[in-house]
């Protein structure tokens, strides 16, 4: 076999191996449909607007089943999580998101709970401090406080002492 022909064969073989190696991941990605876990990873971040307060991944209605199918379809088309979520917001409104977008009055949902907790903690802290450290009275007042409450008690104690 002439040397040039052998070299050409090697080049063709190398080309075939390389193209197979490079093409195979793309083929695998295109042929494998998205798994239920991949679909549910996005679905659980969305809520069914028909039956309120039900995440899309566990919602049993036909509408939610259709939306999960739509997520699957969009994933198979190569669309990303952010893109899919944006599609749902555009079509069904921001209320489908499990976290309201950080804009406008929605900020209240993020700010009020931590502020309320902080305020509550401050109130509890002040109350505890007041209970732990009762106000110390002046020595004069203290000795006065140690004294018998009234004359009757003083006389009673005196009588007891005398009898003993």
């Amino acid at each position, binding site marked *: 076999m002439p040397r040039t022909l052998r070299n050409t064969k090697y080049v063709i073989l190398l080309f075939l191996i390389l193209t197979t190696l490079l093409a195979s991941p793309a083929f695998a990605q295109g042929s494998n449909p998205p798994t239920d876990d991949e679909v549910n990873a996005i679905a659980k971040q969305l809520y069914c607007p028909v039956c309120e307060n039900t995440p899309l991944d566990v919602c049993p209605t036909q509408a939610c089943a259709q939306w999960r199918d739509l997520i699957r379809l969009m994933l198979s088309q190569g669309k990303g999580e952010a893109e899919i979520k944006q599609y749902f917001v555009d079509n069904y*409104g921001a209320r489908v998101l499990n976290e309201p977008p950080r804009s406008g009055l929605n900020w209240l949902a993020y700010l009020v709970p931590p502020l309320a907790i902080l305020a509550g903690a401050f109130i509890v802290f002040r109350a505890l401090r007041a209970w732990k450290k009762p106000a110390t009275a002046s020595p004069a007042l203290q000795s006065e406080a140690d004294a018998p409450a009234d004359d009757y008690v003083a006389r009673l104690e005196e009588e007891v002492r005398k009898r003993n």
Partner: protein
Amino acid sequence: MTEMNEAAPRRAVPLWAQIFVFAALIGLLALVGVTLNKRQQGTVQPGDQIPDFSMPLFSGYEYEGKSEVRFADLRGKVTVINFWASWCKPCEQEAAELQEAWEYYEPTGAVVFLGADYVDTEPEARVYLKKFGITFANGPDMGTRVSQLFRIKGVPETYFIDKRGVLRYVQVGPFLSVTDIQKQIDSLLAE
């Protein structure tokens, strides 16, 4: 004894902070009140003027060749807006009746039927429209803007609006016969 209870003077919360906290609480309560009130209002009521809105339309279901319909352009005609969804079984009960009514009034040019597809997916919506042979203008209620405008409580709901853009009748739930639909439209056409 009374002297013993006299605590050492404690630092009071500044007045400005107290005012701020109370104002914030009142503001929050007012916001909650307004939101709750809005939610309990129910659908728009007969006699209400319907504000202008626009809605995109599905390809093949355009209004006078336009891919978007503006409510203001429908003035002078009786408008029937039907909220539906492909996943809604009761909607199927009235789909054929609505189409029959549309076919009856379409030649007159005095009535507009508009279908608003509520929280649905387009492929299933198209299957539904094809299944019931619906030909009147239909489109997705993008972002549920139109349904929020009408404050719908579910699907199906149908709104009959007179030539001046005033809501005249609301049908909650499906129509059971085409006669019921015609009765509403005829009374508005007669005005």
